[in-house]
């Protein structure tokens, strides 16, 4: 399995890069090879990203001074999801 640290550091960003690269490949007007395979690149990135967001974030050092309100999005995010 993908460890949370590896996910946050490499796997997540790599998926986003693949998605963006796929879009650029699809729309660039120069290299036909890239255009033809762009959809596959986007699809891999999309699937990777959706796996990545479901891996819980690594435990963070809690800021003792932080007394700010805990937002709903954060609470939800702990259960894994698109955050």
């Amino acid at each position, binding site marked *: 399995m993908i460890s949370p640290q590896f996910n946050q550091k490499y796997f997540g960003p790599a998926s986003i890069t693949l998605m963006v690269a796929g879009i650029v490949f699809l729309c660039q007007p120069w290299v036909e090879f890239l255009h033809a395979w762009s959809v596959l690149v986007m699809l891999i990135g999309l699937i990777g990203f959706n796996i990545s967001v479901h891996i819980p974030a690594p435990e963070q050092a809690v800021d003792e001074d932080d007394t700010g309100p805990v937002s*709903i999005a954060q609470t*939800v*995010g702990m*259960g894994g*999801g698109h955050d």
Partner: protein
Amino acid sequence: MAVVSTRAGRLGNRLAITAVILVTLVFLSPIYWITSTAFKPLVLATSVPPTVVFEPSITPFVKLFTKRAQLTAPVDPAVYEAAPWWEKLILDGGERLSRDGKGEIVYSAYPDRFINSLIIAVTSTVLAVSLGTITAYGFSRFRVKGEADLLFFILSTRMLPPIVVAIPMFLMYRAVGLNDTHFGLIILYTAFNVSFAVWLMKGFIDEIPKEYEEAALVDGYTRMQAFFKIVLPEAATGIAATAVFCFITAWNEYAFALILTNRRAQTAPPFIPSQVGTGLQDWTVIAAGTVLFLLPVAIFTFLLRNHLLRGMSFGAIRK
């Protein structure tokens, strides 16, 4: 940046004010142009050079609602005298109103399309906001498994390009006979808007303290009573803002209406541009139709101004 006390600062501020006013005027000029075209006599609408100052006339709006034919002979003065003021405007322009066998004036398709737009936008807004509010309450107050995924799914349905969804929708509607019906368009717009309503309403309901309901529960209310008597009144502003947003979206929608309707249930957005292609185009009439169509949105924008940002950002930014 905010503290302005020096002389240079004051000068800068004055320059900024001038610039802001100039930019606002430039931004509004296209809207002024279409509005002024709607009040122009026919010859001035496409004059070269363009006419900026003119005597406004209401004739385009009379033309918008009626069907007309070219006058072949001069009008009988007696008939002219007997005609009401708005018919005289048409006769002055060298045209006469079309009448059916019984002598009744034949109306153009515009009022029908406008009413279609109204029926479809209002009904779908009511449905979308009702569904959206209760779903948002469900998400806001109860723990739902896979909540983030469900909310993402709900949002993503809103992000789909309309034409992509329209291809299968067209085939499905054709199979069940929903093409070109009000009902078909209403449920489609409801589906389109409900996702938005859920996201926006969730933000508004999250802001209502849970303690209000809990106090009501202690007082012997049921959950449902608490929802209807405590939460809904507290969320009234949010509901109104969401409703206006949903209404504007449904009112402005073009792609689905273009593909899924053609006559009976056609709304104004596909109808207005379709007038352009037909032979001799009268820009004053198109402009009149456009102005009437844009008017509700302009009014709602003013009513909504404080919630606009929140709605446009799907509730991400609150102010």
